[in-house]
C-alpha cells in the first residue's frame, strides 16, 4: 500500500510538473481562459488608441498608421507586386498531383474561400492546423514532397487561397476542448513573452509601438496583422509566408528561430487570428 501511494503521489507530482513546464496550466491561480473577453479587450485597445482608423482598415498594417505610406500603397495596389506570385499560385493550385488528385480534394469547398477559417483546431490530433501545414500535409498524403514553409511555392499557394477569401471576415473557432483552449493560451503567452538578446516580445513592437518607427519601418498594429498574409515585402524583394515572418522576426531580435510550424508558431498564429476575428481577409498583401 505504502509503495502504491508513493508511486501515485510521484506520478501526480510529475504530471503537475510536466504540465506547468509545458505551460498548459495558466500561471495565475484564479485566471480562467476567456478568449471572448480577450478578443474584446484586444480590439478595444487598438480602436481606442487609433480612433480615426476604421476597424476594417487595421488589416492594412503600417499603411493605416501613416498617411504618406497609405497614398503610395494605394497607387501601388493598382499594379500590386504580388500579382506574379498570385498567378503562379492559381496555376499551382489547379495542377493535379502525380496521382491525379488536386489540392481541392484536401480542403472543404475545394479550398476556395476557406482561408478565413485557418488556423483550425483538429480534435483528432489535438493540435492547431495552419493553412501552410494543411497544404504540405495534402502534398505528402498524395505522394508529393513538401514545400519549404518560408519560400515561393508555399507563398504562391497561400496567396491564391487568401485571394479567394478576400473581404471575408476572419472566422477562427475555439471549440469547447481544453486542448484547444490550451493552444490558444500558449499562443497568447508566446505573443507577450520577451525573447532574444534584444528582449522583445511580439507585443513590444505591435502592441506598445504601432505607428512608431523601428529604424526606417513603421510598425503595424497587432490587430489584423495576419489578415494580409502572405505578403510581398519590398525588403525581401519577394513573397513571404506567415512562417517566414515569424522566423525572421525572431532572428531580428537575436533569438534563434524555432522551426516553421513548431507548436509555438502554430499557436501564436491561432491566437493572433482569433483576436482579429471579424476583420476582413486582405491577403495577399504588399508591405515595405
Amino acid at each position, binding site marked *: 500500500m505504502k509503495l502504491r501511494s508513493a508511486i501515485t503521489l510521484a506520478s501526480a507530482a510529475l504530471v503537475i510538473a510536466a504540465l506547468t513546464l509545458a505551460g498548459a496550466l495558466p500561471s495565475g491561480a484564479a485566471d480562467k481562459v476567456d478568449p471572448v473577453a480577450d478578443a474584446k479587450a484586444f480590439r478595444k485597445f487598438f480602436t481606442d488608441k487609433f480612433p480615426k482608423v476604421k476597424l476594417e482598415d487595421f488589416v492594412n498594417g503600417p499603411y493605416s498608421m501613416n498617411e504618406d505610406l497609405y497614398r503610395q500603397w494605394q497607387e501601388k495596389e*493598382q*499594379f500590386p507586386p504580388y*500579382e*506574379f506570385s498570385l498567378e503562379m499560385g492559381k496555376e499551382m493550385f489547379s495542377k493535379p498531383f502525380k496521382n491525379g488528385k488536386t489540392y481541392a480534394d484536401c480542403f472543404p469547398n475545394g479550398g476556395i474561400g476557406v482561408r478565413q477559417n485557418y488556423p483550425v483546431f483538429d480534435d483528432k490530433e489535438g493540435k492547431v492546423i495552419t493553412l501552410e501545414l494543411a497544404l504540405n500535409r495534402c502534398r505528402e498524403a498524395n505522394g508529393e514532397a513538401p514545400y519549404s514553409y518560408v519560400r515561393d511555392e508555399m507563398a504562391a499557394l497561400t496567396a491564391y487561397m487568401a485571394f479567394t477569401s478576400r473581404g471575408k471576415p476572419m472566422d477562427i473557432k475555439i471549440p469547447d476542448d481544453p486542448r484547444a483552449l490550451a493552444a490558444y493560451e500558449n499562443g497568447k503567452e508566446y505573443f507577450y513573452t520577451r525573447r532574444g538578446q534584444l528582449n522583445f516580445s511580439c507585443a513590444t513592437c505591435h502592441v506598445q509601438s504601432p505607428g512608431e518607427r523601428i529604424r526606417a519601418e513603421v510598425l503595424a498594429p497587432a490587430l489584423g496583422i495576419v489578415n494580409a498574409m502572405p505578403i510581398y515585402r519590398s525588403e525581401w524583394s*519577394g513573397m513571404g509566408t506567415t512562417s517566414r515572418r515569424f522566423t525572421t522576426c525572431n532572428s531580428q531580435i537575436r533569438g534563434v528561430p524555432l522551426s516553421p510550424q513548431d507548436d509555438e508558431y502554430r499557436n501564436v498564429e491561432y491566437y493572433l487570428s482569433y483576436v482579429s476575428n471579424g476583420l476582413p481577409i486582405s491577403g495577399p498583401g504588399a508591405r515595405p
Partner: protein
Amino acid sequence: MASTIRVRATSSGETTEVQALIQHPMDSGFVKDAKGEIIPAHFIQQLTFEYDGKNVFTADWGGGVSKDPYVKFAFKGGKKGDELKISWVDNKGATDTTTAKIQ
C-alpha cells in the same frame, strides 16, 4: 507563355497615363547566393514605350533597379483605342514585347 509585361494606359483627353509592371529578376551582379557565389548580373538594359511610331518613353537601366520593376509616367497625346507598344532588352540579349490598348 504569359508576357512579363503588365500594362495599363488611360487617356484623359490631353494626356495619357501609363503604368507598367515587369517581371524580371534584375540581378545587380553584386549579390551572393547561399553558397557564397556571386549571382551573375541579369537586368533590363532598355525599356521603351512606343506610340504612333515614336518613342514616348525610354528607360536606360542598370543593376540598381529592383526586381519586378514598376514604371509610371504620362505623355501628351494618345487616344482611346489606340495601341501602345512596350518592349525591353536585357544584358543577356533576351527581349519581350507586348501591346496594350489605351483605355
